[in-house]
């Protein structure tokens, strides 16, 4: 992609911006609002669009391969402060539900492995769940994502049951309980 070459000219700015994000995350965690754990339950579960994306290790993930498990899909970008703020809570939830029929997929928008890898090094809490790449934003478009972050929780049949527009505290017991109710 011709645009990618331009990105290398901005390494300094990128590092500057990403270096500031942990500061933001700490302050934001202290200012968590009362509704930041609320999820919208769809009146009728909707089949989620299938996808085939690569992760940081260039392994392929399809949504279909996770049928039979509850899936949390999080759309995010390194430039998006609320995406970064909710990342530690996603990791906390992921670790808490490890071993359960649960999968977490963080689908990065527009960026490449090099940028995201560099960014991860700046985080206080490095995610251990799979980071997938949606470089042309086709998967987010198929989900109808209008802004970042946006998250979707799918039941074992691959249907969207819950969604959240904007950042959330995914470590909140209410969210954990909602996910467990789908096991």
């Amino acid at each position, binding site marked *: 992609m011709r*645009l990618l070459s*331009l990105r290398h000219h*901005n390494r300094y700015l990128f590092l500057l911006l990403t270096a500031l994000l942990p500061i933001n995350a700490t302050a934001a965690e202290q200012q968590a609002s009362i*509704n930041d754990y609320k999820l919208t339950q769809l009146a009728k579960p909707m089949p989620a669009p299938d996808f085939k994306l690569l992760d940081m290790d260039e392994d392929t993930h399809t949504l279909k391969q996770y049928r039979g498990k509850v899936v949390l899909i999080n759309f995010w*970008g390194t*430039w998006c402060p609320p995406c970064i703020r909710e990342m530690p809570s996603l990791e906390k939830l992921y670790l808490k539900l490890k071993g359960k029929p649960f999968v977490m997929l963080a689908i990065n928008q*527009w960026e490449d492995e090099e940028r995201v890898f560099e960014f991860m090094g700046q985080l206080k809490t490095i995610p251990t769940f799979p980071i997938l790449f949606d470089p042309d934003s086709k998967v987010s478009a198929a989900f109808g994502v*209008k802004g970042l972050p946006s998250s979707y929780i799918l039941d074992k049949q691959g249907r969207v049951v819950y969604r959240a*527009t904007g950042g959330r505290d995914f470590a909140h017991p209410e969210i954990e309980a909602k996910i467990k109710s789908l096991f």
Partner: protein
Amino acid sequence: MTRTILCFFSLLMASCIAMSAEQRSKNPDSGPSKWTMNEQGFSLELVQVNADYARAVFFARGLPTDVVEEISRYCMFGTIVKNRTKSPVSYRLPEWRVRTGGGVEHKFKLKSEWIKEWSAKGVGFRWLLLADAQTFDEGDWMQGFTTIALKPGEKFDLSYSWSREGKTYNHEIKGMQCAPVKPATP
């Protein structure tokens, strides 16, 4: 630049703090002003974004120079919209109006309009800008840039609306201002 970015993020973070109906604040170091409204459970926050910051943010996304230069010429605000009620709240940016001196009305340049222009140039980027219209359920919120074709430092009144449970609410913020041109440092 570092100070500008720090101050901008600080202003955005402050949005989580409980708000009264209308507030205006100004960062004494970097200068960006912020307008905060909380009416009928609809929360709106607008933070001035100067051209240098806009240029840096869009350029860092790898967008072509002509695209970056074009959008950084616009009057830009970091905009946060939140639903603070239990029932769905909707906004429609195409219905919002800006009134400058002499009562001249302006519309926002919408995300869909930018995306159309970028697509024609082969640029598939569709982030950073606030969506044209959205419905937020309980706990939902979103932030993004909004743009108006006004000059740096230009003053205006903003008329905006939102709807909840079939009722449309209107509000006006008087005396808003686009980010001024950053003064040259000696």
